[in-house]
């Protein structure tokens, strides 16, 4: 609510600034706009931008720092004994304080200390609210005032405005970089905290995965074990099954589409594959769990194989179907990029169409197809919902596609969904897995893009 109010105020001041700037410029040349260096609207825009942008930046900084500062102040007001609590306990205490302050239900009768802290929390929050409001409005007004003072007949308002707009554009472009930095830092930081508890080596090469950690030290199975090999193996198994489905089907669809199909048939097949690509993954997951899983189980049983209803096969199969359009559209592109002269050369020797495709077009397109397959693999590894809904949780180290296996993404979801304190090895393990996932998919992508680019250069 408060955020809308602040934004509204900034917007009003900016609108006022626009009017003042425009009017000021016209007044400076006593109404004769042709005397101005820039159009009056640029003068208006100049003042408006000054009124809005510094205030907005201040607002964002304030909002992002507010939470941390208030918490730190509240903690410093707690008793020495509470402050000495280990981080997990302190976090629990803080969440009690926050809940009490915002009027939510608190689990037990809060202690006096918590009540006092909650009151302090409420007080600080309201101080922050008013201060924020005052500071931002003042900042906006001051900037407006100084910008307005610069308005004159020969003031180069248009150039100034254009420069500001350019900075805004650069800032927008940099957001993509900031996102990457944010991704890498947050993953690295949390994963590093995980590796402080679980040795790196044990994580990457351990063969036993059971992340259940005990809350109290004396519980049975007090320390979970975090050997991620079964998870990696499960991910690879499901990815492999998916690729066995997606690569031949996708590739042959692409070949048919680009080499055989008439324009009309192509016009029908392409949207069909696009529909397949547009189905949300949760729908595929439901399909895998509801329809394909039981079917695979029944199929296995009819052959006397003991199949789990959460088999790797069901998840892999559906994932393969999901990836078909991905492979086919990328392959279609690379096959179409093979120059017609090569085909002509082959036809001129009396090759049939399939001979031309198999022996000339496909070898020529191979690097591009390899790139497409790598991208598809990266897609499969990172796919979440299908495996969450159709693959198991048990970290079995097996190559039997009828058994249940688990994957990196499934583990990330199960470790993080539900209420957990943020500092347990269990939740941090999810970030370590996320880090592995991020770098593996990133590496696959970089390699794939490089291969594809090399290939494109060859025929450009």
């Amino acid at each position: 609510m408060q955020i809308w109010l602040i934004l509204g105020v900034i917007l009003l001041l900016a609108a006022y600034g626009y009017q003042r700037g425009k009017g000021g410029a016209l007044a400076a040349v006593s109404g004769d706009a042709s005397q101005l260096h820039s159009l009056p609207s640029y003068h208006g825009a100049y003042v408006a931008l000054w009124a809005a942008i510094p205030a907005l930046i201040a607002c964002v900084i304030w909002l992002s720092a507010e939470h941390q500062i208030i918490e730190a102040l509240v903690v410093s007001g707690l008793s020495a004994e509470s402050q000495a609590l280990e981080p997990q306990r302190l976090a629990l205490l803080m969440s009690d304080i926050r809940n009490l302050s915002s009027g939510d239900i608190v689990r037990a009768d809060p202690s006096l200390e918590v009540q006092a802290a909650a009151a302090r929390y409420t007080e600080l929050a309201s101080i922050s609210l008013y201060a924020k409001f005052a500071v931002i409005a003042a900042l906006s007004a001051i900037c407006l005032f100084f910008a307005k003072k610069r308005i004159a007949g020969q003031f180069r308002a248009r150039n100034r405005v254009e420069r500001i707009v350019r900075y805004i554009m650069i800032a927008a472009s940099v957001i993509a970089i900031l996102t990457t930095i944010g991704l890498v830092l947050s993953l690295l930081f949390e994963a590093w905290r995980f590796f402080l508890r679980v040795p790196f080596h044990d994580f990457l090469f351990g063969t036993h995965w059971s992340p259940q950690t005990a809350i109290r030290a004396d519980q049975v199975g007090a320390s979970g074990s975090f050997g991620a090999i079964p998870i990696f193996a499960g991910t690879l198994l499901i990815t492999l099954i998916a690729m066995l489905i997606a690569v031949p089907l996708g590739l042959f669809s692409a070949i048919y589409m680009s080499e055989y199909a008439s324009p009309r048939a192509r016009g029908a097949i392409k949207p069909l594959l696009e529909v397949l690509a547009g189905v949300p993954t949760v729908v595929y997951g439901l399909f895998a769990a509801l329809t394909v899983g039981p079917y695979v189980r029944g199929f296995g049983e009819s052959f006397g194989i003991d199949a789990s209803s959460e088999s790797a096969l069901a998840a892999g199969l559906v994932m393969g179907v999901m990836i078909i359009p991905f492979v086919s559209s990328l392959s279609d592109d690379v096959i179409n990029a093979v120059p017609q002269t090569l085909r002509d050369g082959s036809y001129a020797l009396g090759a049939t169409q399939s001979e031309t495709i198999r022996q000339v077009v496909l070898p020529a397109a191979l690097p591009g197809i390899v790139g497409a397959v790598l991208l598809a693999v990266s897609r499969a590894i990172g796919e979440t919902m299908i495996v969450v809904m159709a693959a198991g949780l048990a970290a079995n180290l097996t190559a039997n596609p009828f058994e249940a296996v688990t994957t990196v993404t499934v583990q990330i979801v199960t470790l993080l969904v539900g209420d957990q304190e943020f500092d347990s090895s269990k939740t941090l393990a999810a970030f370590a897995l996320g880090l592995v996932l991020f770098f593996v998919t990133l590496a696959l992508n970089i390699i794939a893009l490089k291969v594809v680019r090399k290939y494109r250069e060859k025929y450009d």
Partner: protein
Amino acid sequence: MLDSETNSATIADPKVVCRDVSVSYSGKQALFDIDLDIGSHQVTSLIGPSGCGKSTFLRCMNRMNDVIDGCVVTGSISVDGVEILDDEIDAVQLRRRVGMVFQKPNPFPKSIYDNIAYGPRIHGLVRGKDELDEVVQTSLERAGLWEEVKDRLLQPGTGLSGGQQQRLCIARAIAVRPDVILMDEPCSALDPIATARVEELIDELKRSYSIVIVTHSMQQAARVSQRTAFFHLGIVVEVGETEQIFTNPRDERTQGYITGRYG
């Protein structure tokens, strides 16, 4: 359009006989009732300004136009007395007999050896590795490329120079032992030295094959061919002995073209 007085469209011992050949692309007519004979063991060159239909005509003779959607060819073309526009005739078989070399060298992204071996392999012309080796060697020798590439047969054909690539493509065409070789401006992407080598080659090949060459260069037509046909706006304006066409054209359009008034 043609009368026997100004044209010698027919010859005594034709390899390919074309009568009333018309071509249209999705309704737009590109060639009008072409009558032309291609002689055995000689080079016939097709000249004319760009867009006059000479390449289109060339592509009719091995039905490469089949590959293009919406292209309709009517009339009659017979090779050794066999009507090739007939639906019964298999374009694949035809192209083995009527080979083609393209404007831009288009070696397959395979080794030099595999480039040559591709045709004999798909047509099942050879049995065993030895025979194939022999075919590759003779084809390269005939294309005058053997000495240059014999030590690097397994390197990619795309690594050769432009002129070498074009001779590789010619060797590739020879390897399936065609009767006729069609060449669509085979030297237009080459430098003068490479062009000279290819022209020499063409001159030599005419002993074993009937060659039809489309060219933009009148000097080239004069150098390599025995017969020349001048195409203009989709018709054959004049056809005859090369020498006669260049020294004593009967039609003023031919005259205009060879003296450089248009084209």
